[in-house]
């Protein structure tokens, strides 16, 4: 049986492995998260109530404002942080935040990655590969 592997157009960070937290919804650290408790807190978000700590977030697009550029660093420093961010479409803020925090992020796929990766699946993300990818283990 061949592993499901999906290649990304852009990537940064280090190779990680973990359990996916996936939904067809956007992402903003300010708008969507209770960063103290480490859960999605925005009532309208499809992951509301879910803990994101250590999970590989698989979401549609970056949303909201500029705060995530600092917040990923702050979340990483406190150790309550996703393991990686996998997006159909990134915006500059997510890229800038990931660059500051040395955080793993990949984006841009031929398929809708939120539908391709099942919520709870064990996955590997490798931004260091010649063709960066997310793979279902």
């Amino acid at each position, binding site marked *: 049986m061949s592993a499901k592997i999906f290649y990304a157009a*852009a*990537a*940064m960070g280090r190779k990680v492995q973990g359990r996916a937290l996936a939904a067809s919804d*956007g992402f903003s650290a*300010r*708008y*969507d*998260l*209770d960063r103290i408790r480490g859960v999605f*807190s*925005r*009532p*309208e*978000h499809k992951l509301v109530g879910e803990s994101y700590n250590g999970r590989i977030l698989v979401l*549609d*697009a*970056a*949303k*909201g*404002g*500029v*705060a*995530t*550029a*600092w*917040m990923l*660093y*702050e979340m*990483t*420093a*406190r150790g309550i942080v996703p393991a990686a961010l996998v997006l159909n*479409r*990134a*915006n*500059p*803020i997510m*890229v*800038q*935040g990931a*660059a*500051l925090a040395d955080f793993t992020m990949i984006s841009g796929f031929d398929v809708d990655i939120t539908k391709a990766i099942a919520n709870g699946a064990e996955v590997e993300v490798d931004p260091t590969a010649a063709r960066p990818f997310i793979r279902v283990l």
Partner: protein
Amino acid sequence: MRLSGEEKAIHAGEFGPLRQWAIGHQIKVGDYLGAEDFVAVGQAHIMADTESLGAAGVEWLERWAALPRDQRLVRIPTITDPRGTDFAYAARLKQLPWMLDLERRTIAALEALGVLMTDTCINYQTIMPPVRGEHMAYGDTGVVIYSNSVCGARSNFEGGPSALSAGLTGRTPRYGYHLDAHRQATFVVEVSDTPRDLSEWGALGGIVGRLAGDYWQVPALVGIEEVPGADALKHFGAAAASFGSVALFHIVGVTPEAMRIEDVVPAGQTLKTHEVGAADLHALQAHYMKDIGTVDVVVFSAPQLSLIELQMLAGMLDGRRATIPLFAVTSPQVKPDADRLGLTARIEQAGGIVLSGMCFYQSYAREMAEANGWKRLATNSAKLVNILGGYGYRPALLSMEQCVTAACAGGKLR
């Protein structure tokens, strides 16, 4: 990315470790987003509220601020977005000493880097509006979308670390909205009912933002029957950026790059078109009103209020009395004029409070809610209602007049 000789020298550390970090950060970002080179920018604008920075971010800034002066100063005018408090009213807001300590430390660090603490998200109304074609590194989504769309300037969303980097290097990676190719419309919105007040302009912005869905989409609006004012476009843009991460819009016949639809729709292309009318605006407002009978607090913020908005608010409050907390948040540039012209006194005589240099959602909104018992909030800012749900509020989107009426009726919504 292609680097000039000076950029290679900065990257090699010849201008100190902070500028070396800054250009390294910019190269990482530029490589990810496909930039081929750098573009010089005229100004940088840094969002650095301490709720976002946290203790780790403040310590990060302080480490750089301790460098020798010649290694730490920004090279171009670099200004700031709102802070996390108005020190004069921190006790009234029940903000805690540790929050104020982080704020003071951040201000000291940024000042040591040569940053001007303007503390505003309406710098395009108060500090220096950018010029068409001018490249900037602005760090507030509302500032970026207004500057790109209404002024015809060129900026991407530059988060705090990247805006600071631009201040230190005087340049930013050339991708996204610095390039002609990204400034064309990607979809059209036919507006059948021109919004009548600021909250409706914000609601329209929210709807357009949702239709856009991501940063790389550029809406072109047709059907706007009259030229909106700066405050209307401020609320529209802030909401579109908030709901959809949008950084550029065109209003055909109004904004400078779209005098005609042909100016922004690529030749031979037919773009997807959406229709938006009054029913859609009211549906968005109704969504946020659902099951809210009474509010605990009224807030006018996000973006900070112009002098004209404060004059409108003062006029609505004359002869009335707010019986629940009512806050109007403005910039440190507008506040002295509001004081001088008697607007602050009129608002405060009616029980309101005028806050300066902060923004409500950037000021420990969750902790303020818990300390003050605020759960349900009324505002005329669509951007604010979009943000505050995640902070535990039940926000209602009303007109300024409806908000004032609620504040003077013990919070009861009619």
